[in-house]
């Protein structure tokens, strides 16, 4: 209970501090307009921010706050990387890309950096990873850190799991499997949903009605629930026919997500179809494929590209969640969701062995980092294309 008491006391102290801060500011600066017109909320905010900053520095210097220190260091490193990357983008490259980087916020450049690194890891996983993804090594349960004094081994810098697979290699291969599969699934969903949506928008009539009602029905069931349901069925089929379960998962998630893409493509398409230039193209006697690919697609690029980023995040998270629940990507393929599930129990050792407890956080953090990066980039793109200045 004393924790709550301290919290309340701290809030009261900050509230009083805000009042004092404003008063002193008015006195010292001789009633400058900035302090004279300052609302109490702003003064409170300044003092709160100062208190939070002081509290963080105090916590950072504490012996036990290992995770907090890691988080702060990670944040600072991320900011420095983003800044350097943006600097690089501003000086190297074509005039167009330099211009793009000049107007970019730090978050977006960080997102692009993360995507580039992940793509690199995914493509060259086989060359980078020190061991194979399903290679069972002699030493099991090696602690991360590579320090023999704490049960580590310099040969396995991030340790090994319960049956002796190198975690670093599995993390790198996870980039290939999880990200690669999510990317293929998103492309498939876009191909199916996008083409059907444009078709429905251009042709209209009964095709539009049938497709739209079918999509309505499919969208009535929450995505993850539906995916789980279909995955159970697919598991049985996969066993019966000897086809890899992962292929079914790609198809199922592509089907579920293509309904969302269909909605967007149809809405965007309908806005474009009524334009005069489409009318002109129709009167010229152009065919359906020309209309869709040469007239509609170029005009729908911006919303579709943003949707692609968001959709990729959703697909990626769905796959990770399915794997976490045990019905997604199957062993021996290394996958981040499954790794979190397998290593999850180690979190309980955080009190005395923070390095060991970081094992489940690494794959989960890897998932989060990519989706955060993609979201930063999409946010920036939407902001730019909507022309919002505020």
């Amino acid at each position, binding site marked *: 209970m004393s924790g709550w008491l301290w919290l309340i006391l701290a809030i009261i102290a900050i509230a009083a501090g805000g009042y004092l801060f404003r008063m002193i500011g008015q006195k010292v600066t001789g009633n400058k307009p900035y302090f004279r017109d300052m609302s109490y909320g702003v003064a409170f905010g300044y003092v709160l921010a100062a208190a939070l900053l002081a509290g963080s520095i105090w916590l950072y210097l504490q012996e036990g706050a290992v995770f907090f220190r890691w988080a702060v260091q990670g944040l600072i490193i991320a900011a420095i990387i983003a800044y350097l990357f943006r600097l690089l983008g501003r000086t190297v490259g074509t005039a167009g890309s330099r211009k793009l980087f000049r107007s970019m916020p730090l978050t977006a450049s960080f997102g692009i950096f993360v995507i580039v690194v992940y793509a690199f890891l995914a493509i060259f996983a086989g060359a980078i990873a020190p061991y194979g993804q399903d290679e069972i090594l002699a030493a099991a349960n090696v602690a991360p850190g590579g320090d023999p004094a704490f049960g580590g081994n310099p040969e396995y810098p991030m340790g090994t799991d319960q049956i002796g697979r190198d975690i670093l290699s599995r993390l790198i291969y996870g980039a290939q499997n999880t990200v690669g599969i999510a990317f293929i699934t998103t492309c498939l969903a876009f191909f199916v949903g996008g083409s059907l949506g444009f078709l429905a928008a251009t042709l209209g009539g009964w095709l539009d009605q049938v497709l739209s009602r079918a999509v309505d029905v499919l969208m009535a*069931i*929450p995505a993850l629930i539906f995916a789980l349901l279909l995955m159970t069925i697919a598991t049985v089929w996969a066993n019966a026919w000897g086809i890899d379960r992962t292929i079914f998962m790609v198809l199922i998630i592509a089907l579920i997500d293509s309904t969302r893409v269909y909605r967007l493509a149809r809405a965007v398409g309908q806005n474009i179809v009524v334009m005069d230039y489409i009318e002109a193209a129709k009167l010229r006697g152009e065919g359906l494929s020309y209309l869709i690919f040469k007239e509609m697609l170029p005009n729908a690029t911006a919303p579709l590209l943003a949707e692609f980023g968001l959709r990729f995040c959703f697909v990626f*998270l769905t796959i990770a969640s399915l794997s976490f629940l045990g019905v997604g990507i199957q062993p021996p393929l290394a996958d981040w969701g499954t790794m979190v599930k397998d290593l999850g129990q180690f979190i309980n050792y955080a009190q005395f062995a923070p390095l060991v407890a970081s094992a489940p956080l690494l794959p*989960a953090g890897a998932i989060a980092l990519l989706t955060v990066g993609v979201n930063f980039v999409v946010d920036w793109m939407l902001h730019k294309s909507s022309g919002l200045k505020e």
Partner: protein
Amino acid sequence: MSIVIFTAVNLLPGDFATQILGQGATDEAVASIRKDLGLDQPAVARYFGWLAGTLQGDLGISFAQMNFQSNLGGTQLTTVADQIAPRFANTMFLAGVTATIAVPFAISLGILTALFRNTAFDRAMNIGTLSSISSPEFFLAYILILFLAVLNPVFPSLSNIFSDMSFSDRLNKTMLPALTLTLVVTAHMMRMTRAAIINLMASPYIEMARLKGLSPMRVIVKHALPNALAPIINVIALNLAYLITGVVVVEVVFVYPGIGQLFVDSVKIRDLPVVQACCLIFAAAYILLNLLADVLSIISNPRLRHPK
């Protein structure tokens, strides 16, 4: 929708009868179990039987429980409704706790970020919410377990809830899953609140209110908020619907005895009636909340209430 669920569930090959009896089952034994469970009837008959039963509140009998009870020699059968009811209450409790924390929190944060827009506070909140939106639920759950259960034992990391627990005990055990879900939904609601208010700030009547000399807080709360209510209510209802899918993963992480966990377990043992019922409940709640969103946004907007 019920047809989709039923067809999907019945596509499961290798039905329950062969599964519980194993590989060496005789044909007679399989046939007798199928007859007991009504699996020998054609699919269409089973569908209408199930639908009629569901409408009367009878969700059927769990296959697994039936098998278990008849092995014990008991005659008391556990119906799906019996199995789901307590778990449904638990899930509703979790969703309720989450909503009571998340909704006021999200709306006040949204108002504050709209008030102090483009300041360091706004930017920090923007980055924070974007990160929490895009992290997987289990990542947030493990982070919370790490800081609030393992390093500083404030809340228990396992939410084993019993029916005869006191309310405060139950609240204490529900706190971590509820906080995880709060993090997941707050971000979206807050961003929508901020966007809806900022959208209105350019309108002439807000300009007027500001020129009258009202304080920024008063302008937002008294003038902008009532008009921004429709999109905000909409996004709240949608996020409550999202909570329903979110609970599956969170319940599994925290071993919370709710519907999500029952669903995942039943999916694993292919217990048809339970899977059907869970799917139906999830889908119904999803649709109802979406409907509620539409109705509430019409009620909150007089222009929609009196169509010309």
